[in-house]
């Protein structure tokens, strides 16, 4: 067990540093902050709302992450397969799940860095008024969990191809489905013809539903279980797919 944990941390260290080895990380962070800022201030009218909270910021996160997390996840496996380094990884005396987990955690930590860089907004809100900081903290927790779920899905999909662009687009599509699954627009469209259980299953997949509850300050077990199991399930499929696809 300690050997497994240590290989998770060795993989984590390498992967996390790899994000910063190219300008990609800086570009990503800048794009994220610029988009988050633009959405919050101009589209949602942060100041015009006149209320000291971060709802204007969190509302946009699912939509931003829908594009940004596939970008973080796309290289995780596609690049290993393209360059052949997967052959090194998979002939090391460690369990494949430790590599899957190490890579995922590195991407997640990178997302954590991006989120941490938005905290000046939190400070600003406190400076302008007296927000409910518990709600904001819950919002950050929800955002981070959602990021983990999207990243796990993107990592999983990146095992299926050697092409990062294909990995990105496919992950964005799947994530889009996850986000929109709970919208009345989508549910209404399937309710007409699909059996009841399918409509319910699609509704249950709704990231948006869970995310909205947690950003209102409601940290509930179903929400934590929803995101947690999405992550665990995606990582398990990821481990399975790596094994299946590695040599092709």
């Amino acid at each position: 067990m300690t050997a497994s944990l240590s290989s998770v941390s060795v993989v984590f260290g390498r992967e996390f540093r790899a994000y910063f080895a190219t300008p990609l990380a800086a570009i990503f962070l800048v794009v994220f902050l610029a988009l988050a800022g633009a959405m919050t201030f101009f589209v949602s009218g942060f100041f015009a709302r006149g209320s000291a909270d971060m709802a204007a910021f969190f509302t946009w996160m699912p939509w931003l992450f829908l594009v940004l997390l596939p970008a973080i996840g796309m290289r995780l496996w596609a690049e290993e397969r393209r360059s052949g380094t997967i052959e090194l990884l998979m002939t090391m005396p460690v369990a494949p799940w430790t590599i899957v987990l190490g890579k995922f955690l590195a991407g997640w930590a990178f997302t954590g860095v991006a989120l941490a860089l938005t905290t000046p907004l939190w400070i600003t809100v406190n400076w302008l008024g007296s927000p409910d900081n518990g709600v904001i903290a819950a919002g950050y927790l929800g955002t981070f969990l959602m990021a983990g779920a999207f990243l796990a899905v993107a990592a999983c999909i990146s095992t299926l191809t050697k092409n990062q662009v294909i990995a990105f687009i496919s992950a964005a599509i799947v994530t889009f489905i996850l986000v929109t699954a709970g919208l009345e627009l989508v549910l209404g469209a399937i309710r007409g013809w699909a059996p009841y259980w399918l409509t319910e299953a699609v509704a249950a997949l709704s990231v948006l539903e869970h995310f909205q509850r947690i950003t209102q300050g409601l940290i509930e077990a179903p929400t934590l279980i929803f995101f947690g199991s999405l992550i665990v399930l995606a990582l398990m499929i990821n481990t399975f797919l790596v094994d299946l696809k590695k040599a092709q």
Partner: protein
Amino acid sequence: MTTLVEARGLKKRFGDTTAVDDVSLSVSRGEVVGFLGPNGAGKSTTMKMITGFLEPDSGTAQIGGHDVWRDPAAAKAKLGYLPEGAPAYGEMPVADFLSFVGKMRGLRKAQLNNRLAEMAERVRLTEVWSRPIEALSKGYRRRVGIAQALIHDPDVLILDEPTDGLDPNQKHEMRNLIREIAPNKSIIVSTHILEEVESVCSRAVIIASGKVVADATPRDLVGSKDDGRAIQIRISSPEEASVIEKIKPLVGGAELEVMERMNGSTRLLLRYNDKPEDTHAIKTRLKSADLPVEEVGIYRPRLEDVFRDVTTRIH
């Protein structure tokens, strides 16, 4: 002698093509096996199955007594592997990359540092130690791949074309390195360079179309074709065909075969059913017939001839 690598009946199909067809191989400590075969013969595929990277359709592979599929961690711990093309993380400096591999292989602190220092010196990487791998020449990149495979001082070393892309000096150094470490390990090297096999390998295994077609010491392989019953003749003439027709009646019923054409001269092989004719007699006879004969001698096959012979027979 301990057997460190034991592959039995390995088979692998990709769609309709059978890449590896019932390959068995066992390698003892101290042996260096040269793995030969034409392009697409199945060398890399066989190596991938022995290392546990690729699951065979049937057959088993053991490393140091551990089955690579049933007990992968124990088997892989004893293995150093250089995949074809020496893949590495291009953005990482050499030192970081080797240190990553070392840690993944369980090395820590002082032990890791010792091994890193030894690799830097032995594989001669000191000059490029802190440079990103993607900025290195092909030869250096290949050496990083070797260092990566050796970092944990494994019992078994599987190297897929380790000298591909190296200049003659580096090839020489690589062979020295392999010879140096060989006594305590089982090594399998695939290569297209036959002289390499003769100079470093204690055994040559030749595969063609996924099957083992020869497995012996390089000397025995050559010896098996050397029955003293063949004579080789070198001629140089633009009208090769007509010269050959004229030679035929003059060599005492030998079977005639074109072996090689190079720089305008042709090497012919005369096979006899038993004792060959005297080379001097043939030479005199051909000269007096005014044929452009350069050289007549008893045929001593080279590994190259054996290779061509055993790998083309199948098709």
